[in-house]
């Protein structure tokens, strides 16, 4: 197991390097510059700005400097907010995006899994069918529609929660609801089909035959394999959720990583783009690894090599 983790992590390093290198040159290749505005400045001032940002140097030199900084985990100052470092923005953004992502995913699991179990055990019950209907509606409503609808109801009609913003618990309500809606339905579906398959397996008949209580059969023997698809879905989903969700953060004016990612791309904030890309890549790699390890733990048929 230890060797396996080491191997995966060693593979991850060149991958990360490739992603960062591609990003580094792609953003510089795109037309525009971090400090360009509608009002153009005299050529001499533009030259001062280039020098100030180190953009007057050839790309390979800039690239070498960047890698040198990165080796010390120094992402440099943001080009757009020169008085703030990229590391600071990443940390702040992560502290905003991560709680939303966690809470939303936890909510999705907490509602989705029982719903899926119910659907698998009593597929014809009215309440199951009604709830599944709502869940399917949730997954098929894009979040840029659902979000504003929730705002209209809870913020602008009932005045219960603020329509946007960040800083207090009440700001969490609407974004978390909007975000989890899509995942609830998906997780419920995954649980339901996994459980239905598991219930038809021979070893379950054996378990029942040897006199285990139905509850134990369900929880220990049926649900464990049934949740494997949910688990493998969790790795990448959680990575994307923690790295910030662009649309939700835009609608609800949340200063998370997704917000900064879009702003950075629009502003050509080279260092910030690279910082967010590296953070997202690391999250994706690590969480996928964790999901794989957890799968191996849960499923005796899987061995990691």
């Amino acid at each position: 197991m230890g060797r396996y983790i080491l191997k995966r992590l060693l593979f991850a390093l060149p991958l990360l390097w490739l992603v960062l290198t591609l990003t580094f040159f792609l953003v510089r290749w795109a037309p525009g510059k971090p400090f360009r505005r509608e009002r153009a400045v005299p050529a001499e001032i533009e030259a001062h700005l280039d020098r100030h940002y180190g953009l007057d140097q050839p790309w390979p030199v800039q690239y070498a400097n960047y890698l040198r900084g990165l080796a010390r985990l120094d992402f440099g100052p943001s080009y757009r907010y020169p008085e703030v470092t990229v590391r600071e923005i990443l940390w702040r953004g992560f502290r905003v995006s991560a709680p939303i992502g966690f809470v939303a995913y936890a909510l999705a699991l907490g509602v989705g899994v029982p719903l899926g179990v119910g659907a698998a055990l009593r597929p014809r019950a009215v309440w199951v069918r009604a709830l599944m209907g709502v869940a399917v509606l949730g997954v098929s409503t894009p979040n840029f529609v659902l979000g504003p609808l929730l705002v209209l109801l809870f913020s602008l009609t009932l005045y219960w929660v603020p329509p946007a913003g960040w800083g207090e618990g009440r700001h969490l309500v609407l974004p978390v609801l909007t975000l989890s809606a899509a995942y609830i339905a998906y997780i419920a579906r995954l649980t339901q089909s996994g459980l239905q398959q598991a219930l038809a397996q021979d070893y379950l008949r054996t378990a029942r035959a040897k006199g285990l209580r139905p509850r134990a059969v369900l929880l220990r023997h049926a649900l464990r394999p049934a949740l494997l698809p949910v688990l493998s879905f969790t790795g990448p989903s959680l990575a994307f959720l923690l790295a910030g969700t662009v649309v939700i953060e835009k609608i609800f004016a949340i200063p998370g990583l997704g917000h900064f990612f879009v702003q950075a791309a629009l502003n050509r904030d080279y260092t910030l783009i690279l910082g967010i890309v590296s953070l997202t890549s690391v999250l994706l790699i690590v969480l996928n690894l964790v999901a794989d390890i957890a799968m191996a733990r849960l499923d005796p048929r899987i061995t990691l090599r």
Partner: protein
Amino acid sequence: MERLVSATVGLLLLSACAPPAAYFGKIEPPEGAVLRVGNGADPASLDPHRAPGSVEEQILINLFEGLTEYDPVTLEPIPAVAEAWEMDARATRFRFHLRRAARWSNGRPVTAWDFVYSWRRALAPETASPNAYLLYYIKNAEAYNTGKLKVRDRRTGRFLTDEFGRDLLLTAEEVDRIRRGEGSDAGPRLQQLRRHLEGFVWEAVSLSAEDIGVRALDEHTLEVETEVPTAFFLKLTSLGVYRPVPREAVERHGRAWTRPEHMVSNGPFRLVEFEPGRRVVLEKNPLYWDAARVRLERVIFYPYSEATTLLNLYKAGEVDVLVSGLLPPYALRLLRRTRDYISGPYLLSYFLLVNVRRRPLSDGRVRRALALAIDRERLCQRLLAAGQQPLGAFTPSDFHGLYPRPKGVTYDPERARRLLAAAGYPEGRGLRLRYLYNAGALHAQIAEALQAEWRRVFPQIHIELIAQEWQVYLETVRLGDFDLARRSFSADFSDPTSFLDSMLSTSPNNPTGWGDPDYDRLVQQANAEPDVPRRMALLARAERVLLEDMPIIPIYSSVASFLRKPYVRGWHANILDRHPLKFVVVERTAPAFDLQAITPER
């Protein structure tokens, strides 16, 4: 009197039908003397010398106080750190008398030396200030900032000047080439310079920070010398880049001096929090010399850019006022009927850049025909619900009647057709043009409307619309890769120069390829003219030259339009959308609400 009457009427209205349904959303003043402002974006920098634009300026003018401050209604300079000033008859020497009570937030007095230090810093090439060009009116400032050289006559010790009395400015490369005596293939400017320098024994002089025309005569007296007579200099001293920075904090903390824990400021407010993407928080500065007058204790700027999100926050009572230009176009017709909606003239021109390098737009008749074929009245009524006005000239205002602005181009389809036919494109046959704009709902709608306008007059014209992402669009315009490109330009300060300068042949904001020696001469001459009416007349002549040649096609002049809760007083619509918070009050009780917030329906 009028104010009193409408206030009474408003009060009656309020008591008759409380709560007044004519307002948009909740009307509940926030706890305490707090103002929450929707500001549209994060400040890129809180350093007055490095901050690029109006988003930053909105915050900065409350942290740092300049020699003068904007009047909240007229924006004319009013005493701030300077309590009095005088200028000489030629408008080249300005003397400011600084107030003895002015303090930095660390207790140190604000002195004339602070301004000397600050302006030198703003102009230092290492500072890389994007707005340094606004200080170029000061003697030797441009030479120092750009590293250009002045030319001195070795016999008299005087600097040589050009025909407008402006000191000659040469790049090191130009000096080199003249010295080496390069031949006639050296380009027109170099040849002209060589002719100009013939017969002189001259030397090229580089200027240092100490040469800039700003001096402290004593602790409380600042003297400024301008490059040429600059009658409008006092309109500049309220600008952000003219405001002082605290030397001790800058030298101690370097780039990090603007962080809340390090910042020292001299304005009515001080910085307590800056979280990108979330908010900027200011608190009243107890050491400010006029602190007794400041009524707000705390101000929060929200950087949200999504217009609908801001509108929701406003309706839910989480935001008290929005700066101009943040209202979603689809909601304007509804919002205009509410009393929260405030609008007024704003110095912003929306126009098209015409690439005169390219055929057929190199033909003035084609440019004029395109300009004459647009019914601006219809466009404004159909499309622009905030009350934008049709614009036939380049400058969007007559500056309170001071500026004899030319009338410019109007709608005349008959003449347009004749002109285009004379240019060889009857009915627009064979005329294919590429219209460039940056992707965005409003610009797309305007582009389509203009396309329709031209097709109505020239049925066979072919206009290709090209939408580009913002930064790509800026680059394409800069490189001059367009036939027509939409553009808007807002003034730095309230003077026609702020617009007309941008069309000088040397301006970085003129990518049209158009340059006219007469125009350049008139603008330069005007800006060296101390007599205001004569100066304005010269500028108007320059604008007529511009409109005669039509390297730009004016479309409309914008309005400042925003929402403001009735309990916010002292936040006015004005031509630059600047709002010094020193004068803003949040009222607690309904009778004191500002009920004048009624814009007559147009």
